[in-house]
């Protein structure tokens, strides 16, 4: 028997299953990163001395990455908007660029990490680097996850557009919610690690 409200919204709650699902998932993500931020604060407050992020980390690169991620956010939302107006071609373009921007972000990150490793600096160096690598690393994994999803909806997954457009649009919206969250995390990560 069919599971109700997979596509259409349930009248009294006003949402369809996947949407509620992803918001709940994001709630748990908030607690996950929350715990790491909390650890960051606790360690920093407890430390006798703590370096300023901009003394040790590459702010210009990170700023560039911020721009990249924000841009990827808008291309993501545009891809969804295009589907709303049934413009599949535009969707393909926007979704594609979202994926590519994600890739750019990762490459830049790779350079950042590489530079540090080159200097023989690893997470074990001190608690600052430990939390820096952990937070950015975990965020990076989230980017990768998002990119896999986006790639799927750009390529094979997009067949569904022709069979069940409404459902496909929902899926893209949900993927978008996740992607924006990843962006949102970075928006907090960037100042707290690099600028303070």
């Amino acid at each position, binding site marked *: 028997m069919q599971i109700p409200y997979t596509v259409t919204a349930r009248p009294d709650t006003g949402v369809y299953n996947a949407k*509620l699902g992803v918001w*709940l998932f994001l709630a748990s993500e908030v*607690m996950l990163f929350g*715990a790491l931020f909390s650890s960051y604060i606790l360690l920093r407050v407890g430390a006798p001395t703590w370096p300023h992020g901009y003394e040790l980390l590459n702010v210009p690169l990170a700023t560039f990455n911020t721009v990249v991620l*924000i841009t990827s956010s*808008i291309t993501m939302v545009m891809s969804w908007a295009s589907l*709303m107006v049934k413009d599949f071609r535009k969707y393909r373009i926007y979704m594609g660029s979202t994926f590519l921007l994600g890739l750019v972000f990762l490459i830049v990150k790779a350079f950042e990490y590489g530079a540090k490793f080159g200097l023989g600096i690893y997470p074990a160096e001190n608690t600052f680097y430990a939390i820096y690598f952990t937070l950015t690393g975990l965020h990076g994994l989230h980017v990768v996850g998002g990119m896999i999803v986006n790639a799927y909806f750009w390529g094979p997954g997009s067949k569904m557009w022709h069979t069940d457009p409404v459902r496909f649009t929902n899926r893209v919206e949900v993927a978008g919610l996740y992607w924006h969250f990843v962006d*949102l995390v970075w928006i907090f990560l*960037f100042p707290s690690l690099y600028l303070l």
Partner: protein
Amino acid sequence: MDQTQTIDFKKHVRTYIAVFVALMALTVVTVAVSYLHLPITAAVVVALIIAGVKGSLVASYFMHLISERKLIYWTLALTFIFFLALMLLPLGSESDKIVN
């Protein structure tokens, strides 16, 4: 595609662009401020305010929270409360230790 959709599609896109510009601007600001090397508390306050604004922009417009259902609000409100507890209570116990 029919008229009405194109209309509000255009409207949507305009808001998205606006938000995008705002985000860029704020990014520039926050980085710029960091070069002033303000005293740490001031710096934290500024950085968090800016990040907060940027965050809420993304959430409200890109994630459409502005026009979201109550159900979602409640879930997030609950999460936020516990998030605060997770931030503040450990700090509180660290700052209230037995001393002599």
